């Protein structure tokens, strides 16, 4: 640290001490202020947009506010657990999640149909939500036992740890979540410094396998479905309808938007799922490009802060875990916005902290709790 200039120290003493004591208090409560501010800001934006998208129903907004409050409470609770505690429990958490996934699959087999829930009497529990946290933690746990960058053996075993739950979730079938979980695990490997040659060869392998599967394995109608998936506008009444309508909504917003509650597309039912997966289009229509830039700034700020926490973390496990959770958060909003603006295929991912509902919100807040824990449990030793 560079010495502070003497002039800076000459400020009013009571103010400075209040500042310091507040810092200590937040530290003691294990709250990271920048992260908290970013999340609160986003939640605020979310409730405002939701009020408009949800046909101005106060009840809808109230329910969402309660969910958010629960989310923040979960984040606060998780932040109290020190990283070494998390590390200790990681294998147990992962094992439990794997067991529950198998249980869900078996009960789904018996119940004949898609099954993602486990009925625990009082409430229903989705094991894949647990895995959203457990997989990056487990990957970080395993990889951090060795020196970076990981060797081929470590990569192989880590891949196995990531792929098994992902495959079980694909079987549910829930492709979106499976891809999300797989990528959160891959982020751990990427951040751990896996060699570039390896990355490129995996990409090359996929590029050669894809056309083979396309020509020799798939049926005609399956190909048609893939085409519709990749190019939804070829199906203007199904998947394409969403995209065409959301593009009209966003595009008609212009620089500054039509103003809050003045959007027309959602009101006239042209825009489907306007309060859940496609809420971004409502924001784009009513607040324009500036509103969107404000939202993206908030998101980027949170990603930046998350990566900063990861870099400053004191042990390898915390670093990898924090980095992976942060990048997964980025994937969430990137894929959702890409989908709504017609850049990416339609997969059912919500816009984090803005979309209505979502059992995934609690999971996400738990992840932010972990980030806070990593940052606030550091032993401040001078180096």
């Amino acid at each position: 640290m560079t010495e502070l200039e003497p002039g800076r120290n000459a400020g009013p003493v009571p103010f400075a001490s209040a500042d310091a004591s507040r810092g200590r208090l937040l530290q003691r409560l294990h709250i990271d202020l920048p992260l908290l501010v970013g999340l609160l800001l986003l939640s605020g934006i979310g409730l405002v947009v939701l009020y408009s998208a949800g046909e101005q129903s106060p009840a809808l907004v109230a329910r969402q506010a309660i969910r958010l409050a629960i989310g923040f409470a979960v984040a606060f609770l998780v932040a109290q657990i020190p990283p070494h505690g998390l590390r200790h429990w990681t294998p147990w958490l992962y094992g439990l999640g794997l067991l529950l996934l198998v249980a869900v699959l078996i009960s789904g087999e018996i119940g004949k149909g898609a099954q993602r829930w486990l009925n625990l009497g009082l409430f229903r529990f989705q094991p894949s939500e647990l895995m959203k946290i457990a997989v990056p933690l487990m990957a970080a746990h395993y990889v951090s036992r060795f020196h970076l960058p990981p060797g081929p053996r470590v990569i192989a075993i880590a891949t196995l740890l990531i792929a098994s739950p992902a495959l079980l979730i694909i079987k549910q079938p829930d492709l979106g979540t499976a891809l999300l979980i797989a990528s959160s695990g891959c982020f751990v490997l990427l951040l751990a410094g896996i060699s570039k040659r390896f990355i490129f060869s995996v990409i090359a392998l996929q590029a050669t396998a894809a056309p083979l599967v396309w020509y020799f394995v798939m049926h005609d109608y399956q190909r048609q479905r893939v085409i519709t998936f990749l190019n939804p506008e070829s199906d203007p009444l199904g998947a394409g309808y969403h995209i065409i309508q959301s593009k009209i909504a966003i595009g008609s917003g212009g620089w500054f938007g039509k103003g809050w509650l003045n959007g027309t597309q959602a009101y006239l039912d042209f825009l489907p799922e306007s309060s859940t997966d496609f809420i971004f289009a409502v924001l784009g229509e009513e607040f324009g490009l500036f509103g969107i830039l404000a939202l993206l700034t908030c998101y980027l700020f949170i990603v930046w802060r998350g990566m900063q926490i990861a870099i400053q973390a004191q042990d390898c496990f915390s670093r990898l875990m924090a980095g992976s959770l942060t990048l997964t958060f980025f994937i969430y909003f990137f894929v959702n916005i890409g989908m709504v603006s017609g850049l990416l295929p339609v997969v059912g991912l919500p816009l984090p902290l803005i979309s209505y509902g979502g059992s995934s919100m609690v999971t996400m807040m738990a992840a932010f709790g972990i980030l806070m824990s990593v940052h606030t449990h550091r032993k401040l030793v001078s180096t």
Partner: protein
Amino acid sequence: MSTNEAIHGYRDRHVFKVRAISALIVVLLLTLALVARLFYLQVISHQRFTTMSQNNRVTISPVPPTRGLIYDRNGVILAENIPAYRLELVPERVDNLDATLRELRKLIEIDDKSIERLHRELRRKRSFDSVPLRMGLSDEEVAIFAVNRYRFPGVEIRAGLRRHYPLGKLTAHVVGYVGRISESDLGVIDAVNYRGSTHIGKTGVELSHEKSLHGAVGYQQTETDVLGRRLRILSQTPPRPGQDLQLSIDTRLQQVATEAFGEENGALVAMDPENGEILALVSLPSYDPNLFVTGIDSDTYGMLRDSTDQPLFNRAIKGQYPPGSTIKPFIGLAGLELGKIGKDDMVICRGIYFPEFRSKRPYRDWKRSGHGYTDLEKSIVESCDIYYYELAYRLGIDRISSFLARFGFGSRTGIDLPGEASGLLPSREWKQQKRGQPWYPGETLITGIGQGYTLATPLQLAVATATLATGGRHLQPTLIHAIGTADNEHLKPNEPTVLNQMSIIDPANWNTITQAMTQVIHGPHGTARRIASKRYRIAGKTGTSQVFGLKKDEKYDASKLAKRLRDHALFIAFAPAEQPRIAVALIVENGGSGGAVASPIAGKVIEAFMERVRDD
């Protein structure tokens, strides 16, 4: 030690930091890509989207293609799309709903169920959406309403298309029918192409040629006002209509055959031996396919399904019967071609046959007194059983089944109709596999007279007869004469598919068989003498297949048996014998004797066909 750890710790930290910063750069770049995309949408294309959102209220709706028509080979229409009228009501334009309905019901019959449904739909739909009140108005009702229209603001008649089969029962088993798209259909079709379509082929040609008949969906963008009312059509991608089909069926032959059966149940297949085109395909009793288009009520359906006559069952392609004596010409040909018997070799028939392998149980001829000295020709003309016991014994089951297989017995013909049965051609391997038993020599004998395990569909018999008629040219039968419009402009004629050309050892053998089959009709002792014509020569063979087994020494007495238990009567034929133009196979269920009951039906069909050929 600790310095080592520190060095590693430092390196780990460094590796991570480099990667984390690269990740942040990638995050930034990807976010910039999003911003660029949004800039494109919101700034560059802003004007376009603003217009769309203001006018927009643009809605896109599918325009279903018109289904292809189906004609017979002479251009007679078999499946058409007729206008169907339905009465619709737009709630917001009706002042007093109850009064309107009351007045309307005085003019047009609307049952209580429809009224109930109307009230249900009214609650669900927006007030400017039209709600159907009644489907399938008659022309008269349309006219009555048109005159009184001024009294009913908000009530309209809408026109659509409905599939109609003008010949109804006559072609039901060939053409099939369309029905509402069901859940199970959705699993196998390209859902995008069927947006807007309500019906899909369920059976017959309507199913097997669904792809050609359906066409491709189109789209229409309509402008709606702020409340969603349709104002005008902005743009449209027209649908590609389905292709018309010209079937090989000759409706007149179909008619003649159906009438010739009278009240009997059975099936007939007539085929052009030159190109495999099916000229007539009859299965009786039949049903009215029009019932299925609008949705059949469960009572009627139950009646059709549970009827002991099984009108929904296509006997011509799904019915499997023992071929009986109609198999004899094929067995005879096998004997000649494989050198197991000479043309003039005699077998002495005393009405009873004691095989060499086991003499306990004698095998009987249908004629108790026997046929005496019998050569090949006599064996076919008089349908001597003893001759074929002996010949079958000499051939053995392996040669019999491999020879018969070349005529298509035991495998699907590949006709373009769904649900064809494969029949059954028994063999040593088949019996070991399916029954887990060895083949017994006695079973070879009864295979020689077309009884036992052997089963064939009428279609298979027709294909085999055609193959016999053309010197071993085994064709795949088809119902398509041409694909395209009937005005011969874009006609794509059907090309015959040759499945197999048999290698012939001696053409004289084939002539011997044809000659014998001609004597069945034209000879003094033939079993089908009654259908002989002076103008042309027919080659044929009668057959009878047992429905239930008789006990030893029990005599078959048709008059004493319940109709259901009587023998099936069969007949195969082709004509003219010298240069075959038509091959026919038919079965009259529980008809009794092939000569008396079955052959006259074929005679009428052949006569009608030959008259037509002469007229042309």
